[in-house]
């Protein structure tokens, strides 16, 4: 069974909500990225919280990302992070961890490295699903066929601006989980989340049996708590990426550890 499906199946049985940390591959370096991933997975295990790691492939022109993730991508690319190097690090991570991994990757990268080859290499290295944020459902058909044959999940996104008539199409083609973008706009930390978030997620729930994870703008334990009431997973990106970017030359993870412990406490069962 695909690790993503397995995670949500278990979470459902145990009535848990998953934590989905987003990490930029290669910022400050690949080794640290995966040390942080293992650290979060370990905390999850200790607190009985399922953890699915979302791994951002740095891209030169990320349209959906705010300044924090843009900067982080730029740092990673400036260090010379490449797609083959990311796959290599994933392989090493897989020898030590069974936490599911979803790659967040621009279609520019997938297309340039040829979708079939990219997806096969992703699967072989130990990635369990892909989120391609600039590939709307209309353009994703050819990739879905490849993904299905590899048992690689192709995670679709739904936004507050998604009109009801598009929902069935997106919901029916989603595998792994559905990524609900909580706010209209780019990634980044926000003080408050939209008031109708609960209603929107409930509407989405009527369309699909696939687990729903909510992201964009989440940075505080209180937000994690309120999303956990309505979703199957809580995605935290910029708030974590910013802190990982601030890790010093000694690569000490103490501050990351205390941030994560506090942030995901509301998910502990």
């Amino acid at each position: 069974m695909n690790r993503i499906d397995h995670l949500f199946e278990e979470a459902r049985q145990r009535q848990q909500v998953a934590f989905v940390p987003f990490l930029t591959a290669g910022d400050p370096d690949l080794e640290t990225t995966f040390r942080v991933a293992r650290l979060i997975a370990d905390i999850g295990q200790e607190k009985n919280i399922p953890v699915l790691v979302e791994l951002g492939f740095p891209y030169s022109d990320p349209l959906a990302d705010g300044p924090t993730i843009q900067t982080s991508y730029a740092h990673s690319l400036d260090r010379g992070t490449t797609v083959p190097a990311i796959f290599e690090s994933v392989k090493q991570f897989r020898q030590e961890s069974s936490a599911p991994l979803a790659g967040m990757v621009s279609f520019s990268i997938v297309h340039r490295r040829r979708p079939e080859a990219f997806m096969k290499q992703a699967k072989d290295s130990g990635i369990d699903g892909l989120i391609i944020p600039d590939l709307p459902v209309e353009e994703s058909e050819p990739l879905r066929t490849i993904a299905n044959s590899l048992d690689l999940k192709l995670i679709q996104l739904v936004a507050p601006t998604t009109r009801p008539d598009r929902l069935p199409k997106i919901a029916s083609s989603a595998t792994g989980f559905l990524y609900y973008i909580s706010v209209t706009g780019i990634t980044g930390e926000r003080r408050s989340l939209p008031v109708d978030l609960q209603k929107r997620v409930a509407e989405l729930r009527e369309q699909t049996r696939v687990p729903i994870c909510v992201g964009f703008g989440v940075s505080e334990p209180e937000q994690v708590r309120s999303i956990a009431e309505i979703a199957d997973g809580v995605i935290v990106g910029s708030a974590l990426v910013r802190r990982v970017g601030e890790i010093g030359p000694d690569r000490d993870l103490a501050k990351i550890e205390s941030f994560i412990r506090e942030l995901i406490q509301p998910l502990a069962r």
Partner: protein
Amino acid sequence: MASLSEATPSTPLESLKRVPDPAGRFGPYGGRYVPETLMFALDQLEAEYYRAKADPAFQAELDHYLRDYVGRPNPLYFARRLTEHLGGAKIYFKREDLNHTGAHKINNTLGQALLCLRMGKPRIIAETGAGQHGVASATAAALFGLECDVYMGAEDVRRQKLNVFKMQQMGARVVPVESGSRTLRDAINEAMREWMGSVERTHYIIGSVMGPHPFPMIVRDFQSIIGEETRRQSLDILGRLPDAVVACVGGGSNAAGIFYPFIDDKGVELVGVEAGGRGSSLGDHAATISFGQKGILHGMMTYVLADDDGQTSPVHSVSAGLDYPGIGPEHSFWRDQSRVAYASASDDDALDAFRMCSRLEGIIPALETAHAIAHVMQMARQRSRDEVIVLNMSGRGDKDCYEVARLMGEKID
């Protein structure tokens, strides 16, 4: 038989003009590679555009502004001294430089601003490289009472101070973009991101035939007035169509505008001229078709300059308006169909052409346009005196005087 002629489409079925398809494809190019958040705005824009296109009142209003505000039709002018100097084919200039605001960009911004009004949105945003599209957007915003924010790479803000001042005078806010290479490409990224958070009350006026569907089609259609006039004027003045039409290409809107009405005139040679910069190594030029390959950028599939991982490459051009690592998808289609030939001109060739055109014709061209002039000068020398080459004089060079003076080692401010 009247019924038969009515049934005959004005554009034949095999025509290369019958693009894009409903999915926004020009052959394999174009499409929509954008975050889900933008899909609603693109669908809404597409629907509104088709309604406007079918509405005679919309076209009449646009025509009114193009005539009385922009000053269309602008002339097709015989460049006598340049022609005599080169001793070959006759060179004609399509005088887009005489439009209000000094370039072809206004043709598109007025059309899109009217679409924005139809959608009931009170605000427009735009990206700009050389500043011409920013000025044309700020102009349209002032004319129709819309709020206007223009995203401009910090490097271009420096290169194009005059246009920054003009935009501000017309009430627009110029937002310097500090990310990435701090040029046009980054300004587009930033405008798209801003649009994602404000789609409900904001229309994004893209300045070229690029981006996700329906933008490449809409901008081409609004710019096609250039080619339609040129075609009519050629028939009036020459009694025939020209032998060749030449235009500079960054994103490619002035070229698409003058080429499109000639696409089915197989006898008319069409040439797009890219920025050859200072050399052929990646990073030294912006010649996307000459050196690039199929990829994804800014929501479209098209030729791009990118590395083996699909990361966009740095580009260079002396002209801020051609400094772009992609090209409109329809150009990629025309290239693959061998309907349009793409060449390049270097920074130095463009600067020489800038000076030559100023001296011989009393017309100071935009540095972007100077790339096309450089190529036309080469072509004209090799062609017979019976041949006619039309050059799209896409913009005037006032905005470039400071930068050219700087490159010549002179100081004028």
